[in-house]
């Protein structure tokens, strides 16, 4: 035959190369599971002293006293839950409306311009939202919105007290502004995943645009939108910097939105670098653990919902 060199088929070098390669990428990929487990383990381990000392009292206690060594996190839980829920309540209709505007109302050019701009805004770091919140929005709230609310709606428990600017209200607004881009862009994706035939079916029946939205888009996209909202909630609950900068950092439970408050991430941000005792650090760790558990639950729920909607178009390679 020709001068070709016949390669022995039992050349082990290549098998070795593939085995080593597979080992390396397997190790790197596995490290992701390991990282998650280590994070959970560390949070639990470091929280143990506080959990053992306070037990369930930690969740309902309102005393947060590093000097006396007495820690209860209720005020932070309240602040986190209230600010996130209000923000999501305000953000959801606006985001869904904006997403519908982008996909089904705006001329294609306008939609193609707004969508990436909204996504770009989701990339602005939270410390910058906080900067704007504390230096621009809070003074504006203090001077215009809040005095007006006190004067005209002051009889309601929600708008009582002196206008400070930095307040629960400021936190709610800044969170709302921050999560709108997230919910809007996910909702947009979900709406775009609705088959055109669904829309055409509604129009063919003589439906108006709104009726098409109600008949075709909303039922089809409902669980995906819900997933987007829950994901937004997860972001809001874990949001640290912007909230810390505008909420006033005062542990209290007040119905008034004008009063300052405190959230779980904020107390960690403010106190963790300069804890006074092991117990103090452990109490903050437990706050972090609660935050971790809440966000884990929220994220798993949201992922399952979004997966159930978009699974169809992200199938594996054939």
């Amino acid at each position, binding site marked *: 035959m020709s001068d070709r060199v016949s390669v022995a088929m039992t050349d082990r070098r*290549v098998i070795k*190369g*593939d085995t080593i*390669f*597979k080992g390396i*990428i397997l190790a*790197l*990929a*596995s490290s*992701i*599971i390991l*990282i998650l487990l280590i*994070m959970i383990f*560390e*949070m639990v381990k*470091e929280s143990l002293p506080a959990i053992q000392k306070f037990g369930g009292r930690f969740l309902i206690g309102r005393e947060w006293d590093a000097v006396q060594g007495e820690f209860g996190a209720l005020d932070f839980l309240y602040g986190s839950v209230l600010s996130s829920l209000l923000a999501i309540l305000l953000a959801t209709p606006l*985001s*869904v*409306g*904006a997403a519908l*505007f982008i996909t089904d109302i*705006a001329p294609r050019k306008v939609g193609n311009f*707004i969508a990436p*701009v*909204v996504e770009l*805004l989701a*990339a*602005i*770091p*939270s*410390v*910058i939202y906080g*900067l*704007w919140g*504390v*230096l621009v929005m809070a003074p504006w709230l203090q001077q215009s919105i809040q005095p007006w609310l006190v004067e005209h709606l002051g009889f309601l428990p929600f708008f009582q007290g002196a206008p400070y600017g930095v307040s629960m209200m400021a936190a709610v607004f800044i969170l709302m*502004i921050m999560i*709108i*881009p997230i919910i*809007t862009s996910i909702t947009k994706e979900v709406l775009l995943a609705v088959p055109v035939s669904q829309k055409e079916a509604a129009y063919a029946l003589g439906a*108006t*645009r*709104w*009726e098409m939205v109600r008949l075709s888009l909303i039922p089809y996209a409902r669980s995906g939108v819900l997933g987007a909202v829950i*994901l937004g909630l997860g972001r809001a609950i*874990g949001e*640290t910097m912007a909230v810390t900068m505008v909420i006033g950092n005062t542990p209290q439970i007040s119905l008034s939105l004008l009063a300052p408050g405190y959230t779980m*991430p904020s107390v*960690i*941000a403010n106190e*963790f*670098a300069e804890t006074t005792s092991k117990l103090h650090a452990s109490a903050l760790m437990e706050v*972090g653990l609660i*935050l*971790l558990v809440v*966000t884990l639950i*929220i*994220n798993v729920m949201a*992922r399952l919902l979004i997966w159930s909607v978009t699974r169809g178009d992200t199938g594996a*390679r054939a």
Partner: protein
Amino acid sequence: MNSFDLRRRLTNTLMTTLMVGAALAVITPLGIIFVHILKMGAGSLSWDFFTQIPKPTGESGGGMANGLAGSALMIGLASGFGLPVGILGAVYLNEFGSTRFATAIRFSADVLAGIPSIITGMVAYTLLVVPMKGFSALAGAVALALIMIPIVLRTTEEQLKMVPGTLREASLALGVPLWRTSLKVTLVSARSGIITGVLLSIARIAGETAPLLFTALGNQFWSKKMTEPMAAIPLQIFNFAISPYDDWHKLAWAGALVLVVIMFTLNLTARYFGSSRHQG
């Protein structure tokens, strides 16, 4: 036209108006924030910002040169840790992705991506700051890497999936081992999409503040070692924004503008690579 049809038309008009209104309500505050950053930032930005370190309180002027350097160093180190794990982890998912174990990895990555970054900071604190007996840029970089990994992993996997199977087959049929095929054919074919994911993940960690609070801590001065506390732009913006001094507020705005410009540049570059993907 009967009254039923009229009501339908009115409802349609009303709801359409509401949707337009929602879009406006979404765009307006974001637009205002953007204008403020541009206006305040441009008014405060000077050459000193890039060359000086912050002045003590009461003295005017100063800059964030140490923060810029610190951010760059920590992002670089975080990329060194995070990119290999994210990209090669994605190669694993792409090659052996149909097992339950792979699903567990994907799920873990999604969960990790949803964990508040301040918790990542706390974990980096217990794992690095406590044993090393001091705040350090190294701990900050590790915290940033942990945030980066799931983002890079998932975007890279998406890109690898889009590489036609026929190319892998062509390479394997030539007697090229799997590992060379993965690195030289599959990864290279997906490179522009992977660059997009990498740039987006860098943009994300460049603005992270919370995970640095208890790791890099921040530094008023130049830091010389990765084992010492180090300044970073987002940390400086935070500290200066909540201070009572006008001069520091100005620096914070300038820092915000610089950060936003970096962020948008990274995002737009990423988009460019993303869109040129199909031209190969």
